[in-house]
């Protein structure tokens, strides 16, 4: 079942690319159907497993096909709660990405959809593979079509943004490749079995120094993708210049692969090394929260503003992951999903406005509410989500992260919480500049079309649903989170014996439920 998810997207992409030579509408429909089929499959798996999900059985599906056995590389895909949630998000946003491009993309439609579906395939692969070589492979598969999406269909400064995106991600990805190879050889020397398999590599024993360097290699790739503040500058450019679907995928999914990597690889593979840098990582997270928020406030480009809010929100992920407790990690999982939806929706709104008034400059807008009330309501919902209003999904995420990080580091949590005030300031600035006030330009606008409603209404419903009934998501992610925590927990005990340094989380670990 699992390879099928990727194969459908890959073949769908090629077919859509070819069919566009004859019929562009058919190409759009084909892409839509491709993603919908994947979405249906993953929902089917979720519903099937949702009833019988227990803590002990954390891997729901596993598919293992040898690929290059002589190097220990295999086509190993596996699905657990976290990957399941991420895939649901991937295909949900994938459908929306196809829909939002329906009118926007008129140039080289076939190649666009080919790239779109291949990005999705890459992301799907990243969320599924349990083989590090394959992981790196998909990591790159995700990158190149995205480069084309930005570089061909983007806005004015697209070449620059696409290069920047590519170089940042590629350079950091190479560091990860080095770390993967390092881990591969160390594990091979120790056991005599050379394998890239995740589960095999989990058992590698590393000296603290080696572990730290290898971890930094992985970390580099993930925190560039996330992004964490000093490495974030590709993001505002890429998000701003990308076409709407590109921004949606970037913000909604590509950033999440970084967060996913932290939870899936960095912490389980190098638990004690991760523990030892935790305070610094959390500090970077908090710097990101505040820096992104302050930057967002002064932006005049709608998409750039939203891009900086992403930087701020991703800071919460960094803070949560390195808090090493279940509350914060569950919050991180929630944050990945809710941020994907709320920020994605804001990019969609920016794109919809751009289609109508051909500007992204919010100082040129104002007073649009009276003209497009439906869009205004949708914007209000997502702006409120972005500032963390309770009742919407983002609140649950941020609240859990902050409660969790409070157990780990109190001064940083206070600073992070203060970020919520700045978040209010920049979020309300969007409303104020775009929808409230009086209109200066006398734009003639039409409110949302049926297709646009079809995009935004489900997003509204999902974000409210996640705010009021998040338990299903929490349950689904529970086993993964517990496993990750188990790794971290183990390291804590280990580290306690080895080193004098007492980690901050130790007080909380004692009462954690053992998986």
């Amino acid at each position, binding site marked *: 079942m699992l390879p099928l998810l990727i194969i459908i997207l890959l073949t769908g992409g090629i077919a859509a690319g070819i069919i566009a030579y004859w019929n562009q509408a058919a190409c759009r429909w084909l892409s839509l159907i491709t993603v919908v089929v994947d979405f249906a499959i993953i929902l089917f798996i979720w519903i099937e497993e949702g009833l019988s999900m227990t803590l002990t059985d954390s891997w729901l599906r596993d598919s293992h096909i040898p690929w290059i056995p002589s190097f220990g590389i295999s086509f190993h895909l596996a699905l657990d709660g976290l990957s399941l949630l991420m895939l649901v998000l991937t295909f949900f946003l994938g459908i929306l990405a196809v829909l939002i491009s329906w009118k926007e993309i008129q140039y080289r439609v076939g190649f666009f959809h080919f790239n779109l579906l291949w990005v999705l395939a890459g992301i799907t692969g990243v969320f599924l593979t349990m083989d590090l070589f394959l992981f790196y492979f998909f990591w790159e598969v995700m990158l190149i079509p995205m480069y084309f999406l930005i570089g061909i269909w983007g806005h004015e400064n697209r070449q620059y943004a696409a290069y*920047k995106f590519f170089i940042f991600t590629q350079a950091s990805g190479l560091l990860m490749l080095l770390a993967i190879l390092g881990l591969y050889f160390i594990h091979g020397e120790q056991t005599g079995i050379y394998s890239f398999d995740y589960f095999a590599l989990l058992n590698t024993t590393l000296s603290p120094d080696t572990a730290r360097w290898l971890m930094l290699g992985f970390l580099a790739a993930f925190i560039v993708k996330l992004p964490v*503040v*000093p490495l*974030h*500058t590709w993001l*505002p450019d890429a998000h701003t210049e990308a076409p709407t679907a590109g921004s949606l995928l970037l913000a909604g999914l590509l950033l999440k692969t970084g967060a996913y990597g932290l939870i899936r690889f960095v912490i389980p593979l190098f638990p004690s090394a991760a523990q030892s840098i935790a305070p610094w990582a959390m500090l970077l997270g908090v710097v990101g929260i505040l820096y992104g928020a*302050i*930057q967002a*406030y*002064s*932006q*005049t480009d709608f998409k750039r503003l939203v891009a900086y809010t992403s930087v701020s929100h991703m800071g919460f992920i960094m803070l949560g992951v390195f808090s090493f*407790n*279940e*509350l914060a990690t*569950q*919050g991180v999982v929630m944050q990945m999903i809710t941020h994907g939806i709320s920020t994605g929706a804001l990019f969609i709104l920016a794109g919809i406005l751009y289609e109508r008034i051909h500007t992204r400059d919010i100082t040129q807008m*104002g*007073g649009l*509410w*009276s003209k497009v*009330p439906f869009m205004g*309501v949708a914007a*209000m919902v997502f702006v*409120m989500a972005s500032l963390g*209003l*309770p*009742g919407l999904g983002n*609140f*649950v995420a941020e*609240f*859990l992260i*902050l*409660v969790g990080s*409070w*157990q780990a580091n109190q001064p940083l*949590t206070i600073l992070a*919480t*203060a970020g*919520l*005030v*700045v978040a*209010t*300031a920049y979020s*309300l*600035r969007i*409303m*104020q500049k775009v*929808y*409230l*006030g*009086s209109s200066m330009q006398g734009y003639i606008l039409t409110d949302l079309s049926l297709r646009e409603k079809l995009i935004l209404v489900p997003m509204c419903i999902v974000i409210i649903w996640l705010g*009021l*009934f*998040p*338990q299903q998501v*929490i349950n689904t992610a529970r086993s993964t989170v517990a496993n990750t925590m188990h790794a971290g927990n183990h390291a804590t005990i280990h580290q306690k014996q080895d080193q004098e340094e007492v980690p901050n989380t130790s007080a909380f670990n004692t*009462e*954690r*439920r053992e998986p």
Partner: protein
Amino acid sequence: MLNSLWLIPTFPFLGALILVLVGSRLSRQVAARIGAGSVGLAALLTMAVGYDFLNSGVGAYQYTAWNWFDVAGLSTSFAFYLDPLSLIFIFVITFVGFLIHIYSVEFMKEDEGFARFFAYLNLFVCSMLILVLADNLVLLYLGWEGVGLCSYLLIGFWYSEAKNGYAARKAFIITRVGDTAMAIGLFMLFSIFHTLNIQDILTQAPQVWVAGTSMAVVIAFLLLGGAVGKSAQLPLQTWLPDAMAGPSPVSALIHAATMVTAGVYLITRMHTIYELAPLAQLWVGIIGAVTLLLAGCSALTQFDLKRVLAYSTISQIGYMFLAMGVGAWSSAVFHFMIHAFFKALLFLGAGAVIMALHHEHDMFRMGGLKNKLPVIYWTFLIGAASLAALPFVTAGFYSKDQILWLAWAGEKGNVWFFLAALTGAFITAIYTFRMVFITFFGKAKTQVSHVPGKRITIPLVVLSILSVFGGFIELPHTLGHFTLFSDFLSLLLPSVSLREGVESSEWILQGIAGLLALTGVYMAYVFYIRSPRISDEIKSSTYVLHQFWLQGWNVDALYNFLFVRPFVYISTLNKNDVIDKFYTMLVRATEFFNGVFVKTQSGILRWYVMGIVVGAILIITISLFVQP
């Protein structure tokens, strides 16, 4: 009937939902019916539930709708908790809310956003009900932020004027500052008690903490931070006067009767913690006392009718904080209820006046309305009398007198609290009747264009009846000693123990307070009716002070200077992201070296040969000489 408790917030929620989804397609009549009707149903249901609750004799009733989230021991539910305290609050919210909805049907009848207005208002009522009914602090926080959102939406209701939007944004951001403190308080509570259920915390707290524990004090202060933000107390009071940009019914419902008293609710609800943190409780009192004086002085100088009332609201909530500071919990709640009646009445009356005079807000351009708008005049007068606490006949007298008395006689009271409250009462009387005299007496300066209809006058009359008779459910020892209200709350909220040997002085203090109120009215009469010249002279001789008070002690300017401008400056300064400069420099450096090295590639063959020769010679030389 008790088990339909969940329906009380659900009705307004459904109303809001319908109005948001299809409001634009409904006729005004239907929208009004849905908007006001849903709150009316909630009010009726509240009465039924309240009746059942009183008859059942249980101390509290809990209803869990669903499990919200449950992670690693942090388990929260959508659960409602009804006890006498929340019953009083939901009664005021639904009942006063219903009256204000009826009023709004006429007040907003020509507005474009009629359905939108009722949608927001219903959503507000729903959030406020969730706030006071919440059985855990996370749900309370949901209601807390929900009312903040509705306040934002309604202050900025007339969004086409940018300044309304800015006022709304200011309100949201400033209350969010307080909310952040409160959120940190929640994190601390959770890390200590491993639950955020209010009742669990309240029962565990005395077992975990001894009185005066620093942890309790810190938490109490953090929760106080949330309370001062929402209740517009010092130092976060600046948003409320600007919030008057919203329509008058909004000011009446949100910025007078209900939302701004959420802070009072929170502190009263968590009173156990404050009893364990005497320092924090003292500061509740100090903040209340200082705020009531500062806001009272500002109210003296305002010329916008609604801003007078706004400052008056801040000041009156200061009384409630003062009461809580001396541990007079039930007095605070009593004053909350009476204040909700008379302040809603005053705002609605002010709204009717403003509407009658073509949206004129300046009191000095009103005047002479006594005969033209008699119903409004009389009801407004009753409200004003209640606010000024005219002795014996008004509800405000009884509620405020209790606070004055306990500020002096209570165990935690002291003479400074008493003096502040007394001075405040005097100032209140002056500014209240200054407002009445300027608005309704004297010469008419603006023509009345719209005479309010039944939908406006009926709520005014009902509220004025409550503003008079509401006080008689709680009478002091000296005057009948009838304590229905405090008995109702006695199981829940501890009563104040008096200092020794002060009982006999109660009637003296009441006399002083009553006399001061009357003197205040008389002074207002002298200044603004008999000889207005005096007031002008005072005004011109104290011009600087007058301006200072008019601007609300210039706190806005101070905050602008301290927080807003530096933030905006830094943010704008760094608009292009200084970190990106580093990467740009990296690119520049690469390009520079590229530029240097590209020169060597001239395309002239002989240079290349030369390069090869020189390179070969160099390498041979190096290998000959360097290698030993």
